[in-house]
C-alpha cells in the first residue's frame, strides 16, 4: 500500500500529538468545593458508575487530631474490578503491590482534595500488554476527578 507524502506527514503528526498528549503528570489531583462527606459519597457513586467496586475504605486519620492536625477526615479508597484484578495479578505480577488501585481523599478546610498516582507511571516496555489497562484506569480517574471538580 502506498501513501502520498501528505498522508505520511499527517500520520506522523497525529501519532506525535497522540503520544505527547498521552504523557501526563505523575500525580492526578483534583479539588472539589464539596465538603468531605459529600465528596466521599460522590466519589464512591462515581466509581460505581464507571463499573468499579470499592474493595475497602481505609481510615488514615486515627490519631491525627491528637498529633496536632485539624482534620479527622482522611481516607484511602481502594477500587477495581474483579476481572481486571484477576487478570493483571496473574499475567503481570509486578503490578501486585499496586492493586487494587487507590485514591487518597482528604479534607482541606471547606474543600476536599483527591489524589491518585498516574497508573501510566507503571508502564513498562517489557510488559506492553498491561498498558491497555493502565491507560484505561488513568483516563477513568481523570474523568472521575473532573466529575468531582464540577460537583457542588
Amino acid at each position: 500500500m502506498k501513501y502520498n507524502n501528505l498522508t505520511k506527514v499527517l500520520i506522523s503528526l497525529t501519532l506525535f500529538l497522540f503520544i505527547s498528549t498521552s504523557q501526563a503528570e505523575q500525580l492526578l489531583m483534583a479539588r472539589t468545593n464539596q465538603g468531605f462527606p459529600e465528596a466521599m459519597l460522590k466519589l464512591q457513586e462515581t466509581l460505581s458508575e464507571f463499573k468499579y467496586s470499592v474493595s475497602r475504605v481505609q481510615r488514615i486519620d486515627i490519631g491525627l487530631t491528637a498529633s496536632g492536625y485539624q482534620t479527622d477526615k482522611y481516607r484511602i479508597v481502594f477500587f477495581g474490578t474483579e476481572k481486571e484484578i484477576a487478570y493483571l495479578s496473574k499475567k503481570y505480577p509486578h503490578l501486585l503491590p499496586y492493586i487494587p488501585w487507590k485514591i487518597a481523599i482528604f479534607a482541606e478546610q471547606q474543600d476536599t482534595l483527591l489524589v491518585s498516582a498516574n497508573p501510566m507511571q507503571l508502564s513498562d516496555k517489557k510488559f506492553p500488554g498491561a498498558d491497555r489497562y493502565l491507560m484505561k484506569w488513568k483516563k477513568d480517574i481523570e474523568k472521575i476527578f473532573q466529575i468531582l471538580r464540577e460537583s457542588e
Partner: protein
Amino acid sequence: MSLKSHILLSAVFLLASTSLQAKLNGEQLYSNHCSACHGANGDGGVGVPLALPDFQYGVTNDYLTKTIRLGRPGRIMPAFTKLSNKEIKAIVKHIRTWAPGKPFKYSNKKINGNIKHGKEIYAKSCAACHGATGQGGKGTGVTFSRPRDLPVIAPALNNPGFLASAPDLMIKTVLMNGREGTPMLSFLKQGLSEKDIDDVVSYVRSFEKNSAVKKIKEKHLPYLSYESPNSMEETIANVKKAAIGKNFRIIREQYLNEGLVKEGKENKKQMMVYFCNFDFLNRALALDPRVGLFLPCRLTITEENGKVTVSSINPLYMSSFFNNEELDKLCQEMHDVYTDMIEESTF
C-alpha cells in the same frame, strides 16, 4: 470510503480535537492543573497563596510563566513541561484576575553587590527562615487543615527554578518592601540600607554557582520483590514477625481481591498484610499531605505454581512523583525498612 480517506479523516479529527483542547480557557486549565494545590481562588494549600495582593504586585508574568514551566525541583511544585506556551499564558492571565492592579515590572539588570557582606547579613537576618544555605523552610504549604506557625513556608532561595525565574530587582524589591500577609518583613524598615540589600541580593544570586539540585536521580524499579523458600503460611507469619520487629502494628490482613468478589470466593493465594507506625505516618504527613498514596504500609504475599513471593511498592520510585526532597529522605528510610522486612521474611 478507502482506508486512506479514513486515515486522513481521523488525523484531521485528532488535530482538531487537540487544537480545541489548547483553546481551553485559563480558568479551566487552572482548575485542572493548579487548583488542587493552590486553591480554587488562589488562597493556597499545599501550594503558596497566589491571590495574596502583595504577591500579585510583586511578581511579573515572566516570573509566573517560568515558575510554571520550570517548577521548583525538589520542592513539590512540578515543572509543567507538557503545557504549551499558550496554555501557560492562559493560566497566568487567569491568576492575574485576582490582582486588583497592575504588577511591578522589573528590568533584568544585574545587581553587583558585595557577596561577602551579603553573606554576613543573610546569616543574621534571613537564614532563620530561608535556611543557612537558602534551602527554604520545611514542609509544604499553608493548610492541610493543620495549624502552622507560618502562613507560608519560606521559599528555597537556592532552588534553580526560583533563581531562573526571579530577576535581581524582584528579589531586591521583596527585601525592601517585605510581603504583607507573610512573615517576610521590609528590611529597609528593619534598618538595612539599600546597599546592604544589594549585597544580600548578590549573595542570593551566588547560590546559582553552588546549586546542588541538579543531581542525577537513580533509576528505581517500581516494586521490591523476593522469592521465599518457605510455605505461604510460614511466609505470612514471618512477614508479621518482621513488621512487629520494626515497631509496626499489624492493622489488617486481607486477600487481594477481597471486597471485589463474593465472600468465600477470594483467591487464598494472594494475601496482603497491612501495618502501620504512627510516628512514621505523622512524619510523612507533615512533609506532604498527599502521602496517603503510600498508605497503609503493606507487603503482598502470593503463591503461584508453588513459588511464594513477597513484594511491596518501592517507596523510592513513588517518591519521585512528589518532587519533594524531604520526602525522598523519608522514602529512603521506608525503602530500607521494606527491604529489611522482605529479606527477613524470606530468609
